[in-house]
């Protein structure tokens, strides 16, 4: 019973992530990839992503603080971050990245900082990790 309840919760949470636009279809693809050979596939990928993204965000922050700002580099970093966010289906983060790049092109550093903060929030593990763990523990 408790199990069912947990399952239901996970399902709802997952659905809300989609509804709120945090996740997109790519995430579904990942789920489909999960099979007997890789039962924790999604979790593993998510872990990789979080590790990688926190590193990316760090690099971005450092680059932002540098003066004068090298927008080219920032653009590259952001491109990379966008790429890895697309891997997990992190829709909002990806959109943020796109915005960042636009700011970059326009040389708008303040916009950058604002967006960076927002991205951090979007990547917040609590959004997705908690989603993963209940599922794996249930199975």
């Amino acid at each position, binding site marked *: 019973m408790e199990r069912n309840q947990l399952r239901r919760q996970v399902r709802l949470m997952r659905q809300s992530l989609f509804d709120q636009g945090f996740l997109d279809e790519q995430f579904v693809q990942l789920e489909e990839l999960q099979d007997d050979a890789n039962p924790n596939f999604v979790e*593993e*990928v998510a872990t990789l992503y979080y590790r990688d993204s926190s590193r990316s965000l760090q690099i971005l922050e450092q680059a932002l603080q540098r003066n004068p700002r090298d927008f080219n580099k920032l653009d590259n970093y952001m491109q990379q971050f966008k*790429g890895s966010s697309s891997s997990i289906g992190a829709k909002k983060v990806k959109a943020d990245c796109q915005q960042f790049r636009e700011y970059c092109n326009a040389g708008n550093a303040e916009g950058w900082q604002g967006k960076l903060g927002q991205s951090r929030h979007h990547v917040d593990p609590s959004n997705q990790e908690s989603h993963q763990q209940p599922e794996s523990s249930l199975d």
Partner: protein
Amino acid sequence: MESSFSSPRNDTFPAGLRVLVVDDDPTWLKILEKMLKKCSYEVTTCGLARDALHLLRQKKDGYDIVISDVNMPDMDGFRLLEHVGLEMDLPVIMMSVDGETSRVMKGVQHGACDYLLKPIRMKELRNIWQHVFRKKIHEIRDIESHESFEGIQFIRSGSDQYDEGYFLSADDLTSSRKRKDVDNKYDDKDFADLSSTKKARVVWSVDLHQKFVKAVHQIGFDKVGPKKILDLMNVPWLTRENVASHLQKYRLYLSRLQKENELKSSCGGMKHSDYSSKDAHGSFGLQNSISIQQSDVAHGSFKVSGNSLVSQRVGTKSHESDIEGIVSEPVAEPKKGSNGNIPDSQKTRSPQMDFNNSYAETKKGLIGNVPDSQKIRTPQVRPSHSLASVESEVNFTEFESAIPTKYSRNEIQLNKKQKPLIPLNSGFNKPPLPGPHSHFQVDRVQSIPSSSSRPSIAEEDVTGPAKSKPSYSEYINIQGSHVSPTISTADSFPDQIKSCVVNHQVSEAVSTSTANMEYQGFNLNCITDLESAQRNLIVESASPFGFLDDGFQICWYQGDCYGMNLGLQNIEFPEYNDPALVSEVPAHLYDALRFDYPYEPSEYSVIGQGLFIS
């Protein structure tokens, strides 16, 4: 990462397809690996482009297809793409989260057979086998068309059967991801036949490529044609189509290098601008425009195969003196008379000098590049065939040796000169090829009465250019690899670039002697038009002469051939007033072109290493 064996694959194609995935993003690597495994492919993942190249080179036939990301920290995805296409001739698929048309176009230009957008879906990966299949089919056709093939008979019959079988199942294949159907349709025997043709697939090894470059040089860039190359190469199992496609790749490669060189040079502060101003023609950077150069160049043939040397010459038009024509030739097809670049009639001087056509006319700096900025554009680019003028030749030889072109470079042993020079051969040469060529080159140089050591250099260069092999690969090496001072006999490296390098080296050596002054004079004259790109190439050598292109320098000094390639453009050969030199040079070059010099296998390996951006 292990490579798979080919036999099981054949029976159940496309299952078992050996895929190499290259991406710096660990998340994507994991996802792609999983996806490809689900497609029943054999996957090998790689986080660095260098590792990937290493793997590919280790097992030439170990993979069927490569999937690579575009943005990678250690190497540009497009560059990797070029390498793979040239060295291994495998289909390469590019991926990126950026789907801008310009990027996609760039991918296609570099030879990608497909460009996927991230996030990548399973269904997109399921169909990648079509690229492998397509290539096989083309190879079979190539082979079949080659009458002389003895072993083709079996292939032909096999492929015919295969084709029929394929067509039958084509619908199934394309309709869905039901690979099972395909497997069922495929007759094992048929497929086996098809795969047996795989043996006939051309893998452009270092040796083969060197032969190719040599042939290109020998023929003369502007006259190059697949059939001629094929005949010269004298490789029985090679088809005209193989050569044609390889030639195209090479040209693209050279032009690309040239462009990059130009960029580099600008970054490096090369004096491109100086040149460019002069150069009215602007055609300079043509990657494919090498031919342009040729037209003008008297000797014309030099033209380095299209890519590279675009140096087309910059400005030569504007003043005759611009040698520019020189270098711009992308080393690409040195075949041409080495100096193809000199589009302007100026070339006069050295027929060979493709380099820098401009220089031909203008006595200006010999080595073409140094028009004002002293860039020696040195016709590196010009693979030296035709150093029309002694100068040009000089440059070539210099280049040649310098040019790490895989093959030839080593040959060019500008030993004497090279020593002081930066090891152009970037890597190839590791040890200066003491081969006969080198001597001969050196000797020639010495024989040249002209005071300027340059002429002598030219000789060396001349020989070098002859060697200039389309060492695009060398070029690559050059960049990173060590420019070995021992530019082995400048066997007319087709790679103009190399020559550039060589030139520098040589020129450097020469400069010491005396020619420096002379060259400088020449360069100044010639170089006026030197295009910045060219400059790059020659710059280095110009140090003594002063006309070395910055870009060029970069190549040499830093052992970075890369710069050289681009710089070829400005190879300006100072005009040598010494007719003897001129006449001598051409002969020189041609001799060199004749692959007199034996290539030392060790050199090749060196080159190989050098070429591959180690």
